């Protein structure tokens, strides 16, 4: 069997503030293989975002290990984590998080800037990514000139442009109407069909239903919804 993209082994997260410790994510084992489409559902405050941040190398587990493509990233330096995020992970956020003063093209170029790609090549690849999400006519528009759905598609193009091994989407349709949400989910589906590994976080069961595998998270505990083939267990 090939090395999974994601392997969490007893990975948990405790936040400490003064003498108070809050266990945001209880130790969990989780494996996600290349090409999977996984949805994580759970109510607000359940630990979904904490899981996403650990998987996205934005945060480190306080216990256990996290292997991304076989490499233990739990103890990497800040600079190395930045490089991992830049090379392997794409992000799509609920609030889009586009740079409001920059055009759609410049927003999509952003990850390539930090990858050290030359300007001309950045432009070419960013334009191609925008074309993939159907926004080739909007390259020079700023976020304020785009609809919510279009902004999320720009964010999707930004995540895609670096050809990530893992795409993390945090409530990608949470700020969209159903039509725009449908378009975004369709794009995610298309990406999955092209072999991109997707991990979607949502509290909406209808959105989660698009995934091939479903996990639930409650009070920091992750459980498999027994419909797929993922392995999940408490350590």
């Amino acid at each position, binding site marked *: 069997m090939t090395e999974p993209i994601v392997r969490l082994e007893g990975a948990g997260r405790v936040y400490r503030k003064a003498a108070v410790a809050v266990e945001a994510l209880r130790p969990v084992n989780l494996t996600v293989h290349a090409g999977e489409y996984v949805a994580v559902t759970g109510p607000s405050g359940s630990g979904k975002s904490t899981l996403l941040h650990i998987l996205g190398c*934005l945060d480190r587990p306080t216990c256990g290990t996290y292997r991304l493509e076989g490499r233990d990233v739990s103890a990497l330096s800040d*600079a190395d984590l*930045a490089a991992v*995020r*830049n090379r392997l992970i794409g992000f799509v956020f609920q609030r889009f*998080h586009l740079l*409001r003063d920059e055009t759609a093209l410049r927003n999509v170029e*952003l990850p390539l*800037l930090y990858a050290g790609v030359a*300007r001309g090549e950045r432009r070419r690849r960013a334009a191609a990514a925008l074309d993939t999400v159907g926004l080739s006519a909007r390259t020079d528009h700023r976020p304020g000139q785009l609809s919510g759905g279009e902004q999320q598609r720009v964010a999707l193009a930004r995540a895609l442009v670096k050809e990530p091994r893992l795409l993390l989407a945090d409530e990608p349709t949470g700020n969209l109407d159903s039509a725009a949400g449908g378009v975004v989910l369709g794009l995610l589906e298309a990406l999955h069909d092209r072999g991109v590994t997707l991990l979607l976080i949502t509290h909406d069961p209808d959105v989660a239903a698009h995934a091939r595998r479903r996990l639930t998270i409650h009070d920091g505990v992750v459980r498999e919804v027994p419909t797929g083939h993922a392995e999940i267990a408490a350590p």
Partner: protein
Amino acid sequence: MSSALWPHLVEGVTHVVRRPLRSFLTAVTCAVAIAVTVNVISLNYGLDEDIRNDIARFGRLTIDVGRSPLIRPGAARAVFGEPELAKIRALVDGLDAVVVPLRSEQVTATGDAEAARTVLAAVTPDYPRTLDIDMAAGRWFGADEHGFSVCVLDRSAARSLFPGPASAEAAWSARSALGRRVRFTGGEGREAVVVGVLSDPMTYRSLFESFDEGRGSRTLVGALLSFRSAYVPADAIPSPDLTMVHVKLPDEARLETARRRLETVWPASSDAIRPDVIAPVTVFTRKTWMDAAGNVTQTGAFLGNLVWILICLVACIMISTLNLVTIRERYDELAVRRCEGARKSHLVAQVTAEGLTISVVGGLMGLPLGYLGAEVLRRIVSFPFRFDPRYAAVAVGVAAFLGLVSSVVPARRAAGLDPAAVLTRRVT
């Protein structure tokens, strides 16, 4: 600088352009600080440099031997005449010195106008060699000219005696005094033709005179600096008394030798100021005085520097605060950059480039503002405010430094941002 950081510096500059209003407002703060800085530096160092140049014209290698300006109450006036001159010549023998005896009187001179308290100085043709001052017009008198046939005027004396029409005051020329006749009080036939006008060594004469008002004529230095004299050939005042003897040496080594030799007979003027050792005749080494005067201007320059440094410090704090507020508003943007792979060093480079760009642009904006300020101040107060491009260049350097310093804290804040905390709104 690492070439890998270059795109992030460009990113910083681009960000400045994308937010023109905020960038402009921050730049204005910097511009005001730089405008003040350029004026204070120009005033500071410009004035200092001018004063040093002025002082240097008074003859650095000349020693003056003369009656002490201070007399012990009840003491008789010192004898200072031909025997003392002979003694001086003997003391500086072998040093290639030029020795110029000077006899003077205070007279009222009359040309087109009357000038009271003019110093009438009878000197030998070598007198100009004791100074480093050029002729403004005409020539000095020669060895074949005697008595009250010819005279040379200091520029300010010439201007007082031959002011010309009031309408042409600004265009007054020293040449206009040449060939004119001047009458001096103190006897019959005291009338001479002006053959030359000596340049004024003082760039800011009016300023000096306002400082020196009421005291200048009473001190040796004041008399030296007043430069309101009329010079006539040595035999025009046939008195056995000498006012002063100027000794010009060819170099500093021989100046020092001459000073030591002269002070074996007469004390230095600085010693003479002590009331317990008031000497009738003193030795005044101009170089010593010039160095002391230079140090005084240095103190002024230090105080001036303190002013602009304080102003820049305040500007730095203001810009730093503005940058910090801006960074706080940009937490989302910076967090997204971190998500997409920006390292801390990338954000530090970007934020520093933003601060540097704004402050340099502000500095350049401050230059015309400084020029304008100098013009306005020059009209309001009679002080030599001026705009000097050399000091403007220094001010732009100061602006760049300001930008760098005021970016340190915001850059650290940006680099230390936890993107996960921002995106989950644990930090806002």
